[in-house]
């Protein structure tokens, strides 16, 4: 896929998904190369006590180590961090995760906007943000912020997503660099983050 041109070598990937996201993330994590070297931070909307179930399903499929984030978890390369149910997940300058309990954003806690906006401030141009399937508009403000700080923005084609509303809302910001199908995303990420 020679059409990808990411300005700076990225240091992290952030992913946002909502309805339909478990299938999409499961596929994505099963297809990523085992030598994928960037941390991946994921906010997937999830019911209040359901993150264990989500972890179990995704861990079975993932080629990379995957965990539900704890406060001040050090962000390691080649590792997937899921936002815990009921908390917003943010990135701190020192390369650690932090959590908070501010009000839901876009009716969601965890919120994709909150993750993307904090990661944009820490990683700037060295961030890749991806919005997948979903049925609300969380992620759109985040995509705008990521772009504003010079990062690379990617959205799943709304027509091919299980739920097109969320990727469409992000696309409508006019701040999206790449529009890709789910099937194309693993190769896309491997190209920027493979060893």
């Amino acid at each position: 896929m020679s059409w990808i041109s990411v300005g700076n070598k990225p240091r992290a990937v952030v992913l946002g998904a909502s309805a339909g996201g478990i299938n999409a993330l499961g596929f994505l994590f099963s297809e990523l190369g085992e030598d994928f070297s960037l941390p991946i931070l994921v906010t997937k909307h999830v019911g209040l006590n359901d993150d264990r179930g989500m972890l179990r399903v995704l861990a079975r499929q993932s080629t990379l180590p995957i965990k539900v984030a704890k406060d001040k978890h050090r962000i390691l390369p080649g590792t997937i961090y899921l936002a815990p149910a009921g908390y917003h997940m943010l990135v701190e300058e020192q390369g650690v995760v932090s959590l908070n309990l501010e009000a839901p954003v876009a009716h969601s806690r965890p919120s994709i906007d909150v993750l993307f906006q904090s990661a944009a401030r820490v990683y700037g141009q060295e961030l890749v943000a991806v919005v997948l399937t979903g049925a609300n508009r969380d992620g759109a403000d985040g995509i705008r912020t990521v772009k504003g700080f010079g990062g690379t923005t990617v959205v799943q084609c709304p027509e091919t997503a299980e739920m097109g509303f969320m990727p469409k809302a992000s696309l409508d910001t006019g701040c999206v660099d790449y529009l890709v199908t789910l099937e194309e995303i693993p190769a896309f990420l491997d190209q920027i983050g493979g060893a």
Partner: protein
Amino acid sequence: MIETCSVADLERLELDLLLDAVKTRYGYDFHDYAKASMIRRVRKYMDGKGIDHVSELIPLFLHDNRAFYRFVKSLSVVVTEMFRDPDVFKVLREEVIPVLKTYPFIKVWHAGCASGQEVYSMAILLEEEGLLDRCQIYATDFNDDALQLAKKGIYPAKDIELYKKNYRLSGGKSRLGDYCVSLYDSIKINSRLAERVTFANHNLVTDGVFGEMHLVMCRNVLIYFNEQLQDRALTLINDSLCPRGFLCIGRRENLKFSQIRNYLEDVSNTLRIYRKLGS
């Protein structure tokens, strides 16, 4: 001089200058707060005022102390619920309460009680276990607005179904409705439950040890601090526990960065409930 300064670098610089100004002018030191949450609060405050740059808050806060105190109050606004993490309350009921029952008088401290939902959850639990009348509960926060809310014990009625579900899952012995009354679109917790509660202003960052507590609840407060400040606050909390006292922190928080880990044994590490070793 730095040749290139990215948008993010500039914002960090502005925030540091703002925190310096605030510390010098008011004595509040926010440098060791978790910056990612802090910048969200700052940005939200700026959006409300139509301010573009963080540094514009410096003259505002230096000259307008009411604006500053409003901002400080907005920093610690959290949105939580009664019996959040029901399994934590279940283990408190089944494993911690039986030990507390052996004491003639029990002191419980909610450090960072915010709007008080957890304080009332605990009061209900103690009441059902026949302990409330020999308890003194201290509920502290550094935000006076939050303390006022906590004291009133009035919460949006739309949350009651979630509270009820949590209560049931936590092993509640009665009906949550027995402990509150409905008022239009709110619920009010029975004032009887507040009789054993003292609400007081206390700042974990600047204030001292709180007395010999049998149980300290400090859930989802440490997440707003960086590792150094977490360790400092946890040391203060550990010093406020009596020998063999219990500590409960938030489910996604951890003691990894704190030296106090060495002085605590697990009641349930997954649920973040610990017990101080004997002296």
